[in-house]
């Protein structure tokens, strides 16, 4: 009796104990805990399981746990395989995609344990799992954020599997969400992405990722239909209980790429046509020399032999022809000189502008002596320039200052001033100031044009190419040239040249 009573008490205690366990299990809301028989049929179900998987106990008990797996996993016998592995080792842990009652998928982390009786016979399994995107509230926020992003957003785990994506990603790649979740990111970014997430001998996964954070990576994306398109990817890490996930913002840059390509092609085209034009000017003016020489020589021969032997009209005609040929000759020479600025220049180097000016003054010695001009200068800097062209530039400007002089002693002064503080943008601004005729403001632009003249031919010789050459030289040096002047008050020409590399 006492024994019976004792047994009853023990049974009561056991029942109480079982009851407490059940309450305990049901109290666990964020983990699915259930038991299965040896073939995977569900025999118990807690509230967490109902919440996570969506099945009520009465709906699921008796069914095989393979219904939690995506069809493709069921197809390859994954549920059975997991049971076999658990039975063999006693315990099995992994992460994987699971399917809720409503068909939606989620990433789950789960642990299975084999239950054996005292004789060691397999009695069933115990599964303990949770939704890895479990923090529903923050997940909802995160999803909201993803959906609001203008770019395709894909969250990838360290195995290279897609965990989450937004609607823009579906549109960009042409897949439905459930076709991508759980799949390798290689399916949509064939190369260059997954590799960046992988640890190797010299770095951990976190370090590998850290190297990529915040920089745009240009890769190729592949749509469901197999077509590829250029993408720019920005990566950012996302801490999660299962390790670092990577959020990738993927932007389709087809349009930008197309624009870039077009721009490059246009630049190349422009460069080519510019070179062609320069070449054309050179060849044309060069080839014009030959027939011109014939015209000039034979009209001169005519003039030498027959002047005064024909009538006066003939003499006049011949002299016009000779004059025309001579002028054409000068024009062609000037055109050649102009085109040589672009095609025949030397490489830039450190050049003493003072020496260049002195060379120019030496070249102008005849004109300087004849006019009595006084050419002075401040100490001048070393600049980054084509030496020959710098000489020509000074020579043209000083030569003009002498040529277009007022009565009296022409005074010409060359000075320089530093412009711009930043090292690689520092330039020297040169000024060539004279006390000559001066120029009206309305001609300030015109004088730098090709073959532009402000005076009659009888007044001043020349074709009007000098300042056009100056402008071209200065522009080749990345600068610009301008003039300040008042009629009768002299002129100041200013141009900028880059500082030499050695200076800062």
């Amino acid at each position, binding site marked *: 009796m006492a024994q019976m009573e004792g047994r009853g008490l023990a049974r009561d205690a056991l029942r109480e104990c079982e009851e407490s366990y059940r309450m305990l299990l049901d109290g666990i809301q964020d983990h699915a805990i259930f038991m299965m028989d040896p073939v995977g049929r569900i025999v118990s179900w807690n509230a967490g399981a109902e919440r996570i998987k969506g099945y009520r106990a009465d709906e699921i008990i008796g069914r095989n746990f393979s219904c939690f797996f995506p069809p493709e996993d069921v197809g390859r016998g994954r549920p059975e395989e997991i049971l076999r592995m658990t039975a063999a080792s006693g315990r099995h842990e992994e992460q994987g995609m699971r399917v809720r009652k409503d068909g939606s998928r989620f990433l789950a982390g789960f642990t299975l344990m084999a239950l054996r009786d005292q004789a060691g016979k397999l009695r069933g399994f115990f599964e303990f799992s949770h939704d890895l995107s479990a923090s529903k509230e923050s997940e909802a926020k995160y999803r909201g954020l993803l959906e609001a992003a203008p770019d395709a957003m894909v969250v990838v785990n360290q195995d290279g599997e897609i965990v989450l994506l937004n609607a823009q990603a579906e549109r960009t790649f042409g897949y439905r969400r459930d076709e991508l979740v759980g799949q390798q990111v290689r399916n949509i970014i064939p190369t260059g992405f997954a590799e960046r997430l992988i640890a190797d001998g010299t770095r951990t996964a976190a370090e590998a990722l850290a190297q990529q954070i915040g920089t745009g990576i240009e890769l190729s994306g592949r749509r469901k239909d197999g077509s590829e398109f250029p993408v720019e990817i920005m990566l950012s890490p996302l801490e999660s209980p299962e390790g670092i996930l990577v959020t990738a913002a993927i932007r389709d840059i087809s349009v930008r790429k197309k624009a870039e390509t077009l721009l490059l092609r246009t630049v190349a085209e422009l460069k080519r046509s510019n070179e062609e034009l320069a070449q054309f000017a050179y060849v044309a003016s060069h080839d014009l020399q030959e027939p011109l020489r014939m015209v000039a*020589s034979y009209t001169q*021969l005519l003039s030498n032999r027959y002047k005064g032997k024909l009538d006066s009209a003939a003499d006049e005609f011949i002299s016009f022809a000779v004059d025309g040929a001579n002028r054409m000759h000068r024009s062609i020479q000037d055109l050649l000189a102009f085109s040589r600025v672009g095609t025949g220049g030397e490489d830039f180097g450190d050049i003493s502008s003072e020496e260049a000016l002195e060379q120019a003054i030496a070249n102008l010695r005849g004109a300087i002596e004849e006019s009595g001009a006084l050419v002075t200068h401040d100490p001048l800097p070393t600049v980054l320039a084509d030496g020959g062209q710098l000489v020509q530039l000074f020579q043209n400007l000083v030569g003009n200052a002498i040529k277009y002089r007022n009565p009296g002693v022409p005074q010409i002064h060359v000075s320089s001033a530093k412009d711009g503080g930043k090292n690689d943008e520092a330039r020297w601004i040169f000024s060539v100031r004279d006390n000559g005729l001066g120029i009206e403001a309305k001609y300030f632009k015109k004088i730098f044009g090709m073959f532009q003249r402000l005076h009659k031919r009888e007044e001043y010789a020349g074709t009007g190419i000098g300042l056009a050459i100056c402008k071209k030289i200065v522009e080749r040096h990345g600068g610009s040239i301008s003039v300040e002047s008042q009629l009768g008050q002299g002129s100041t020409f200013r141009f900028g040249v880059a500082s030499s590399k050695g200076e800062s």
Partner: protein
Amino acid sequence: MKTIGKEGMPLEVLLIEDNPGDVRLTRETLCSGKRSIHLHVATDGVEAMAFLRHEEAQVRAPRPDLILLDLNLPRMDGHEVLAEIKGDDSLKTIPTIILTTSDAQADIAKSYQLHANCYLTKPVQLDAFNCLVKSTSDFWLSTVTLPPPSQPR
């Protein structure tokens, strides 16, 4: 055997030039001097080489004392002719003067690299041209002592 440079003996000059206008101008100037000059004209490079090597119709061609060579020629251009002349042991001692419109640095450099004896740019002005041809012929045909017609190798 004639003695080169002696007064009274005609000098043989080969002008390689395709422009008849230039040929005439050169002839006018060269032949207006006191020296007796036989001016031979080849109008392209192939013809010039045939003359120099006494080929075909040119078997009786004399060996020139001086060659005036234009660069821009049909068929075989001046640089090619120059290379042939200066690469040929029996011809390379003949003074060869480049007389051309080109003042391109590349043409000048290449000519001297191919051992041109000098390089002259034709001036546009008639007087300057006359002066150039005259001073050149004076120098090469009177002032300098030219090599003997054939040198032992």
